[in-house]
């Protein structure tokens, strides 16, 4: 039987498994992840107040529940010789086909003086924190009353919306009360969101801005709209902005700045101002927190760069026969969940074609991994975590996520968790 391993259980890995089930019937597919829980950014990126988007996970669940795909959690793909990890060559000796769908979890840092000051935080870290990712759940960022967001993509708008929402707007979400309480306690008064592009070329989708218009306690102001000129007045982005209520006596004032290039961040113990270049003039915004939302990069630099440099067809994700890359890891930190679906279908077709020419082997897949690694988790382990999260959720929330890796592993293993709330 052909053994296929997909490393990374995010949307691209899951969509690829779906497509491979059709393109390579009879193959066995395992999806591996460093966490004991699947679904990548669907669980840990997509905003907690966008449960409709998170519902795509139900579709992925079917892979493991009905379609015979294996989930192997708590296994990290790492560099050769690194302790506690699985190397690529080990993985390739266990599987005929290996696909890397590791995503790009690291925030691209602002390349500015002052970027290392306390109070400067990456949007990925912040959204992981709100989503209770075990890597970033513990530290509560100190927000303050004035927030500057650098970047104007959809992730930046997610951050803006979550910071600006009132506690009651999180009903029906899975944002833990500790997060909504913390945001409310900060008493945010102003949010400035800045991008280099003119408004009609900003990276957000107009629907993301339209959603903001529904929050009555926010008022909006705009700087640099003139960059868009008269020619593009009917642009969907400009129209969405024009429909936002103006800043008058609102509780939170949001200012969009277009054509603003960040130059430096200043402060002594903590960031206290962010400086921008606007058409040659310096804009200085006093602030308590700077959130950078300017993209993502790989957390395993040597691996990704080397593999992509030698790739046979990097655009499609063909590294070399038998080794492939998918999703953000292959294409960079752009594109929505559905884009990964289309790309996965194209890659699956290519893998099926390559398999026709690969020599027949008798690799043992998961059995080989189990012999070499301890502490692996499985799909039933995730189902135990899932059940515990659903059972523990309180008023107004649809789930209470387990945010601690040790607790997750305990639950996954089916051992009783010595947690005060589960002792009743």
């Amino acid at each position, binding site marked *: 039987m052909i053994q296929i391993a997909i490393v990374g259980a995010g949307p691209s890995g899951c969509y690829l498994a779906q497509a491979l089930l059709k393109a390579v019937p009879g193959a066995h597919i395992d999806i591996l992840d460093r966490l004991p829980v699947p679904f990548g950014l669907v669980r840990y990126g997509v905003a907690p107040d966008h449960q*409709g*988007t998170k519902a795509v996970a*139900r*579709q992925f669940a079917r892979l493991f529940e009905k379609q015979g795909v294996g989930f192997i959690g708590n296994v990290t793909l790492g560099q050769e010789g690194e302790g506690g990890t699985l190397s690529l060559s080990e993985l390739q000796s266990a599987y005929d086909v290996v696909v890397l769908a590791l995503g790009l979890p690291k925030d691209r840092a602002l390349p500015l003086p002052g970027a290392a000051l306390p109070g400067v935080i990456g949007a990925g870290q912040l959204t992981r924190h709100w989503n209770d990712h075990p890597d970033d759940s513990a530290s509560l960022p100190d927000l303050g009353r004035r927030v500057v967001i650098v970047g104007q993509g959809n992730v930046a708008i997610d951050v803006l919306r979550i910071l600006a929402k009132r506690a009651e707007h999180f009903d029906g979400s899975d944002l833990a009360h500790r997060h909504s309480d913390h945001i409310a306690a900060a008493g945010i008064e102003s949010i400035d969101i800045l991008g280099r592009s003119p408004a009609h070329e900003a990276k957000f989708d107009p629907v993301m801005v*339209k959603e903001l218009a529904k929050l009555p306690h926010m008022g909006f102001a705009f700087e640099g709209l003139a960059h868009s000129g008269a020619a593009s007045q009917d642009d969907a982005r400009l129209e969405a902005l024009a429909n936002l209520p103006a800043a008058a006596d609102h509780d939170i004032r949001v200012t969009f700045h277009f054509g603003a290039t960040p130059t430096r961040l200043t402060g002594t113990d903590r960031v206290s101002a962010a400086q921008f270049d606007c058409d040659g003039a310096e804009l200085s915004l006093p602030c308590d927190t700077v959130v950078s939302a300017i993209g993502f990069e790989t957390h395993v630099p040597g691996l990704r760069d080397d593999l992509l440099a030698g790739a046979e067809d990097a655009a499609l994700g063909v590294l070399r026969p038998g080794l492939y890359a998918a999703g953000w890891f292959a294409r960079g930190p752009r594109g929505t969940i559905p884009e990964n679906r289309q790309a996965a279908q194209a890659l699956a077709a290519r893998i099926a074609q390559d398999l026709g020419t690969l020599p027949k082997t008798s690799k043992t897949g998961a059995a080989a991994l189990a012999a070499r690694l301890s502490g692996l988790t499985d799909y039933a382990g995730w189902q135990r975590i899932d059940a515990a999260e659903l059972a523990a959720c309180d008023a107004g929330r649809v789930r209470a996520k387990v945010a601690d890796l040790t607790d997750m592993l305990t639950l996954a293993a089916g051992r009783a968790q010595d947690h005060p709330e589960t002792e009743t």
Partner: protein
Amino acid sequence: MKIALLYGTETGTTEMLCEDLEGHLGGDHEVEMADLGDTDPTSLDGDSLHLILCSTYGDGELPATAQPFAQALIDAGADLSGIRFAIFGLGDSTYETFNEGSQKLAELLVKHGAKQVGDRTTYDAMSGDMPEDSAFPWAEERIAEAEPLFAAS
């Protein structure tokens, strides 16, 4: 009864729902399932009830696989007057353009002469309900409504 189960999808939810529906209806009916993206609008079959399921994407647009179908229908100027269909939409009420994709598709089919059986039913991904809980009854009701129409012809 002969049923053509057609879906337009972007993130795959509608396809999965159709697979469930195929399993649900398959015992009692002759069901054929296809992606709208692989369907030629001029080859729809007048002997089948078309059960169409379609999501919404972007800002109220048709999802990826329904777009080529809609374009082909417009380009061919196809006459669908012998075709009967019922439609189920998937959307998310976070968006102001809630379920406009299925609405646009229904209007387009009617404009080309197809006859709609019963009202469009919509599902809201924000509701937390499972789409099959409303899609299965929808399909059964529309089939019951359509049965006399097909028996008569």
